[in-house]
């Protein structure tokens, strides 16, 4: 342990850790844009109706994560993920307060995600995560 008291050793270790930090910042800068958190929405309204739809273009099998914290006084929220050939990956309809935390393995292809709402006093939080390296998102409406 005596070696750690030597000034030279101290500065060498400090320099190595500084280089590690510099490398990690460089890595962070290059990879931060791979994180797709979309939709990332905090919705709050007295009344909300309509349809929101986006397409996920999956280029490589990947996992997506969904967190949906719905608080509604009346009405419904419906969330559907459907593959282009019609295969339903997810389909749920909420008519009361509910917390959804799910993940899905998506194969290559095109997936249509639709959110239908006809809600009163909507307090809704939605987080949808995917890896931008393998999945691109396109809003339809």
């Amino acid at each position: 342990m005596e070696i750690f008291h030597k000034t030279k050793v101290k500065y060498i270790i400090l320099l190595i850790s500084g280089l590690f930090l510099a490398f990690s910042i460089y890595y962070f800068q290059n990879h931060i844009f791979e994180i797709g958190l979309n939709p990332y929405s905090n919705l709050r309204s007295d009344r909300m109706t309509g349809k929101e739809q986006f397409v996920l273009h999956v280029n490589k099998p990947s996992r997506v994560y969904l967190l949906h914290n719905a608080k509604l006084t009346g009405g419904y929220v419906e969330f559907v993920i459907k593959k282009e050939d019609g295969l339903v990956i997810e389909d749920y309809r909420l008519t009361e307060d509910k917390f959804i935390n799910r993940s899905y393995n998506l194969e290559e292809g095109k997936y249509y995600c639709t959110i239908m709402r006809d809600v009163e006093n909507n307090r809704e939080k939605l987080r949808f995560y995917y890896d931008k390296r393998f999945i691109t998102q396109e809003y339809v409406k």
Partner: protein
Amino acid sequence: MKISKNIRKSLFEVEKISLLIISVVVLVNLGANGLVVLLSDAEATSYFIQQLASNITLFGFIYLMMYSINQAITAIPFLVSLNCRRKSLAKNVMFNGLTRSLFITLIIIFINAIVFAPEIGLDSVTGIIGFNISSNNPVILLTIAVIFCMLLYFIYSLTTFISLLGVKYGWEYVLTAVFIILGTCFLLFRPIVLLFIFGRQLNLFIFLVLILTAIFSLINYRSIVDFEYKY
């Protein structure tokens, strides 16, 4: 028993300074946020309550960090210079961290239970580590409390470890430790996002925190027992 009580008293003398500083910072921060309530409309009240919850959560962590640093750089060298029994001191330092972590967890859970009560209707947080924080389910609340307490004690052990490292070997190692921690956070940013929002790899995270806490606690215990007063 009496020695242990005296050590606790001496450590509390140091803690008083941390408590005073953190209270002033929290009060000033909340005071500034409180002005929004006075100057704005009714919506601001819920904003203030959210600020209260997030401030107390954040400063819970900062308080523990400050307390552990204060202990390592002032109380431990002072008590060692007075030939205090090292094993009792080491046990007390660890036990203090545990009780403070429990206490802060209780305060935070209590405030969150009030703030996120359905009557108040606050809904600022989607979920934390994959759990619904505004839930009234006791099992979920207990799980969050246990994880939170573990995390607090982990932070306490880590800062005690870094402070003792600095006292024993020099400031260069403190900076090294900070660089390594920051670097690891930058490298693991994506898993961290997935963990703290969606609760992905939560089991692995809990396992790692437990293992690292045990390692740091053991090293801290040995460091305090072998502490040499050199001033």
